[in-house]
């Protein structure tokens, strides 16, 4: 595949107005990255408000389905952060993240989601500055791409009802 499949459908997307704010979901592991994000706060580093953080115990818990669901529900971008390799609170939980995320990136491309909308980085508990910069970067990256609007696409094109949470239920 030479280019993302959804380039043809950009006409159906809402135009990005000057006030448009990208919506990004961040999945962060509790021990390193979430603490790193807290550290950015403690140091009063300012960064854009666009990344909404969801906390999991380990980045190994970040099921690729969580990422695709976030896109399906209207996220314009997704950020995944975990401990650096070797620092995982659960020894090797992040090794699985390291294996999964590049694959997920390929799948997203096949789904027509630009790779720039998804980022996977290691952020330690001490890297508050790295986290704040990362948020600024991905926000800018996604802002340049404009809205993704998968829910709108799915409705206008009649594909993937995907709105039904029952699929996830136990």
């Amino acid at each position, binding site marked *: 595949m030479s280019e993302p499949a959804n380039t043809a459908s950009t006409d159906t997307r809402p135009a990005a107005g000057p006030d448009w*704010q990208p*919506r990004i*979901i961040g999945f962060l592991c509790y021990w390193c990255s979430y*603490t790193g*994000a*807290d*550290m*950015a*706060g*403690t140091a*009063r*580093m*300012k*960064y*854009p*408000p666009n990344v*909404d*953080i*969801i*906390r*999991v*115990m*380990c980045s*190994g*818990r*970040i*099921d*690729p*389905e*969580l990422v695709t*669901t*976030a896109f399906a*529900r*209207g*996220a314009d971008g997704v950020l995944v952060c975990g401990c650096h390799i070797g620092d*995982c*609170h*659960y*020894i*090797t*939980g992040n090794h*699985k993240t390291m294996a*999964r995320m590049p694959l997920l990136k390929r799948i997203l491309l096949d789904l027509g989601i630009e790779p720039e909308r998804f980022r996977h980085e290691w952020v330690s508990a001490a890297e508050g500055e790295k986290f*704040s910069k990362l948020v600024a970067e991905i926000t800018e990256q996604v802002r340049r791409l404009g809205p993704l*609007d998968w*829910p*709108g696409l799915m*409705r206008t094109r009649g594909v993937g009802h995907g*709105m039904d*949470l*029952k699929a*996830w*239920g*136990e």
Partner: protein
Amino acid sequence: MTADRPPHRPQSPPAEAIRIGVFICHCGGNISDVVDVRRVAEEVGRLPDVVLSTTHMFMCSDPGQMLIEEKIRELGLNRVIVAACSPTLHQLTFRRALSRAGLNQYLFEHVNIREQVSWVVEDKAAATLKATRLVRAAVGRIRHLQPLAKRRIMIHPSALVIGGGVAGLVATRDLAKRGMRVTLVENTPFLGGRMAQLYTLFPSNEDAKELLGKLIAEVVHHPLVTVHTGAQVISSSGIVGDFRTRLRISPRGVDKHLTQVGIAMAACPEETISEYNFGLTRRKAIYMPYPGCWPQMPAIDWRSCTKCGKCLSVVGGKGIDLSQEPQEIEIHSGVIVLATGYDPYEPMFGEYGSGIFPEVITLQQLIRILDPEGPTAGQLVLNGRPVKSMAFIHCAGARQYEGINMPQPSGKVNDYCARTCCTATLHQANEIIDRFPDVVIYDIYQDIRTYGRGHENYYERASERGVRFIRYDPRRLPKVRHDPRGERPVVVMVQDLLTNRLDVEVPVDVVVLATGVIPHDISELVDMYKCAVGYDSFLLEVHPKLRPVELAVSGVFLAGSCQGPMDITECSAAAAAAASKAAALIAQGQVEMDPFIARVNEDRCSGCQTCLTVCPYEAITRDPRKGVAVINEALCTGCGTCAATCPSNAIQQFGFTDTQVMAEVEMLLADMMPAPLPTGGSHE
């Protein structure tokens, strides 16, 4: 399904309607100066099932906590959300408030609107919107929370101490004195470790073996102590409170009926180098390292023994058995103390002439020579030549610099200070001045670090009594060469910083390398107990100041020089600290752990075993009868990696189920949905 319900999920989800209370904190302006908290409360209050949405100046204060308790009772709240600081600060505070009000503490959700909103977002409107989204997500998630109970694990009232050196002995003694049953495991056939190889000890000049003998007597005669020598840890399972450790015990080959010890040892034709004397002498395959060792009987070194039977025949077959096989036993213990100690640094070939000149020895070898019970009966003689002059070179294998020192086999240099060698070196220098006043001593150093109480006296006394100090530049290491003039066997060439970089040549009989300290190789134990290891390869404590003798693995403690270079005083202090931490844990009787573990839905599990491969703790096995995965709850630490991996969604992690996290995603993005908001109803 009720029968399958886990014991730590004591009740089914409440049948009554979900009643959510939302409490938003001003944090005295820390939050409310940026986030319009009243607006957030108002917005969230409109969501279904939210019975109460209010704000308070300080939620964590006593009145704030009381407000939560009151409202739970008054309004019959069965879910509580607090939007305040980071959960790392006060999640526990609010969970306790829930407990006090009679609500399960895990029906609580903490939203971080300070560290991750008010302190990082400049625009007030954007901050208020973000806070609203995050609280809204918590409302979505909290509907799916279920009451959970902390896991309780009983602690077996016993300890396993690995390592029979001074640290292991002190830890064992202290634990036994507190009434704990202790198993002490030593890898070699004799107790005492490195301390047994010393002669006198700084700073009191006491006799090492005499002191050690007293300590060993206290340990081995204690009724609560079991000692296994020649025992190796081969596997370990379990967690805090319930460790099961398998030991392989090599047979000693000798028992107490052997009375003619000297005759048996003399009869042995096999010789090997003596580890005890650091290779200065040789010993037999049936041996005792030194006369006062414990146990007071020889052991057979099975690597050198050929089972020729000569020892057996000279003593008439009494007390020696060459046919014994290794035994395996299992030790059940509540806690584990690691006291695996250190090894002296072994100089590489060519390092300060080591291996090239027989006149270059290590500090450890010198100490053996100075020991009246040592290979030369305390005479300062090397290779048959009396020593008239000697040079100490400090920091061999310590405080090394990348690009200057040869890298170690690991590829790194030992850049840490080995701490004990400065005082030990000066202690030996003084010993030599006392006993052999004619010997000329040079001390070639980077820095002298005699840091402990009484240690500096050794430096002062050495300088007063004629030790010649030469300070080298670590970028220009001293070189050891043949003495071209032939006065002495070797010459040390060094640039002296004390005399404005004068090039000095020091001809001497012996060069003593004050070799540093490296951790004893315990890579198997490191894997077994999942120990954290520092950049210097020593074991790493949880926190150097707040939790200095604990490993991150709960129930495993560190004693002595497995944690870093320490002298005996420090080893004993660390061992005593480890013993008291371990005893305190045992005295507690049980430990509580968070309930966020994973659980398999057997009806959904296809038995593909993918989860087995991802679990970092090997907590998942396959039930061969049912063909499904089974999670050992005692081993599961709740990372959730298996839950993310399961292709059938058959594994759920309590507190982070798919439904719960998906609801959070959905509610964060609720305003992006073209369809109306989904309301109420649990899908679990």
